[in-house]
């Protein structure tokens, strides 16, 4: 193999890395807010599916990416409020509620998708997705140009999202309250902070970003909805949060690492023909998640009140 070919392979893998990391970044950043406030949402997978479907459906009927994204955001907000209702207000076991959300997400999206698209109106099946935007001049930089400056809008948005999340958590009163509520809710309560409100907001931020992560899959990555399109990314995002030590920058790094595995999987699949059975590559992200979880010793950064309903 000559050098040029290797370089071009590396280039395409790296470009795909960011694209594949993007849904994880959205979802994991959201879950950081949720978990930092003391709520764990393992229903991310289901919420991603709901976001993916609502974005897809609205876009396919209105031909407007903007309306599609808006409806994904709306579905995320509704999911987040419902999740908060059960976990914060009713104080039910968060893991059980999360498992239920995954079932509802799977069942409901499958049901709606089959109901709407079984009639054979195939022209609606494929969307015009977010186009990739070449940034003038920068995209012409050899090698890095394609990796960094020829992506679509939702990928670029992560460049804003991560620092913004980090800023909110470390430099705003809201971020301070979120951290206090997740570490020591009673201390926050006696300081006059509304624990319930903070947890509702944080959980809803988490669900909304998960829905966006899902919408990315159907509207920017693929150009249609497929049942179960999240393929475990909701759970991988949970591992990303742990691996990133509950910090936005850490989660971005962890997401990019997983992005590499996804990109490798895609690239090798395309290259190897039938030499390596595709399942061996397909399994890579899942194995990587297991290895990451095992390699983490201790969990010093875990919010103390994580998973515990607050009773005044």
């Amino acid at each position: 193999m000559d050098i040029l070919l290797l370089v071009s392979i590396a280039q395409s893998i790296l470009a795909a890395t960011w694209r594949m990391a993007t849904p994880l970044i959205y979802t994991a950043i959201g879950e950081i807010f949720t978990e930092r406030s003391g709520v764990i949402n393992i229903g991310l997978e289901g919420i991603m599916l709901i976001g993916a479907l609502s974005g897809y459906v609205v876009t396919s009927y209105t031909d407007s990416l903007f309306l599609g994204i808006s409806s994904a955001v709306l579905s995320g907000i509704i999911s987040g409020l419902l999740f908060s209702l059960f976990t914060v207000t009713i104080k039910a076991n968060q893991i059980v509620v999360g498992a239920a959300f995954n079932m509802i997400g799977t069942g409901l999206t499958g049901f709606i998708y089959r109901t709407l698209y079984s009639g054979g109106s195939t022209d609606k099946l494929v969307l015009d997705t977010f186009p990739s935007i070449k940034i003038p001049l920068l995209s012409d930089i050899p090698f890095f140009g394609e990796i960094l400056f020829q992506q679509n809008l939702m990928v670029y948005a992560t460049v804003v999202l991560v620092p913004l999340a980090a800023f909110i958590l470390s430099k705003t009163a809201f971020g301070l309250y979120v951290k206090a509520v997740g570490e020591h809710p009673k201390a926050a309560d006696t300081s006059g902070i509304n624990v319930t409100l903070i947890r509702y907001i944080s959980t809803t931020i988490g669900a909304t970003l998960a829905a966006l992560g899902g919408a990315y899959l159907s509207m920017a990555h693929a150009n249609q909805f497929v049942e179960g399109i999240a393929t475990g990314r909701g759970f991988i995002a949970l591992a990303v949060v742990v691996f990133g030590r509950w910090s936005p920058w850490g989660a971005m790094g962890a997401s990019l690492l997983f992005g590499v595995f996804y990109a490798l999987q895609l690239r090798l699949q395309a290259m190897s023909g039938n030499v390596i059975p595709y399942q061996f590559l397909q399994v890579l992200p899942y194995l990587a998640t297991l290895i990451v979880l095992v390699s983490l010793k201790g969990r010093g950064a875990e919010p103390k009140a994580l998973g515990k309903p607050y009773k005044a």
Partner: protein
Amino acid sequence: MEDIVKTFPDTIANDGITIEVRSGEVHCLLGENGAGKTVLMSVLFGLYRPDSGRIIYKGESIQINSPKDAIKNRIGMVHQHFMLVPTLTVTQNVMLGQYAYTKILNNTDKVAERLREMSQQFGLDIDPCALISELSVGEQQRVEILKALYHGADLLILDEPTAVLTPQETTHLLGFLRQLVDNGLTIIFITHKLEEVMQVSDRVTVLRDGKVVATVDTVDTDPRELARFMVGRDVLMELTREATQPGPVVLSVKGLCVNDERGLPAVKGVSFDVREKEIVGIAGVSGNGQTELALALAGLTECTFDELALGGRPVMNVSPRKLFETGLVHIPEDRHKMGVVLPFTIAENIILEDYHCQPNSHHGFLNKRYISQHAVMLVEKFDIRASGINEELEHLSGGNQQKVVMARELDRKPRFLLVNQPTRGIDIGATEYIRQQILLQRDKNCAILLISTDLEEIFMLSDRILVIYEGQIIGEVPADRKLIEQVGLWMAGQRSTV
């Protein structure tokens, strides 16, 4: 506060309480555990809503629905368990009370500067940029007071503030509170310690079973009268205790080192012996390595040592179950977390350690009949008040829960009894009973190590007292009440002798 009633599903915590606190006084709220002191103050601070009654503050009837309302009305509270987020700094903790949900924090430096000034003004010696987790218990308490003062408190409530302090720190705190009152503050001081009432307060209100027993001027009363108000009868202040002749060494510890859960050294090379027929008390302010010491002796955490022998035989990192078989009995410090399974019944809790052995278990199956009979016997013997052996432990009072633990453990006929904080959060009746049981074990040739942050308890029960400070034993005295000053100094880390 007029006619405050607050009920919980199982109990009436406040049953029509009326108290009056005058501006510029230190008002003590005295009562046993469970008398309703903390609940009453939580109502005042907006943590609970009263079922009925009203609060008149500065001449006006006010509604306090949340701590936010309380703080707005310039009421501050220092809770028994500190309300500080350990991962945040002093300044950040203070800023939690600003309720500006959308604000960008650009005034952190100003707040820190103001805190530094106030800290100097009151002589509190607090660094506003320190992380709470790096501060000692005494410092954290001062942060709590500083926090309340920063938010402009006129009325300061302190809930059992001296429970975590050494005698010297206590004296200092009480002096400081008088200084605050001189500056125009009003203070409500919750306690169950009579000397403190006499030392610090202008007036005192005594609560019992959710009702006001009396409100008196401090100068007009004496400890004996207050005690009678508090428990409704004359208390036995002293247990009768006969001197014994200690027997051979049962537990021998040399050079024991233990790390805490973060991996930092918590016990740094302690050595001591405990003999038969002897109670050795370990005194110290909480957080000086007592927890880790107890864990290590019970085989529940890894440790290093030069020598560790129980009953003459060396103990090398064996399982807790093996230690139990050699006669160790452990009564852990936190009942709910470590001692019992709350949703289990009394009978089920009693077999927690021996469920797998004959006769509780027969060919692998639980022997319900024996378990019940045995439980009935123990419930009677240890005077556990419950509707029956099949009542879940979560429905029992703290004192009765602890009696279940005692029943289970003492029934094992210990050779070495390790007790950690046996009476914390328990009413006086049960406390007396439990202390008697511990003394009884001593008379049955048991060797006993008593770890407690309650100096009263230590002096009441022990034959010898060791003082632990920052993971080291820095002094030993016989249990003579005249030496309480010395023990206090050691607890504060002063190595010199008086």
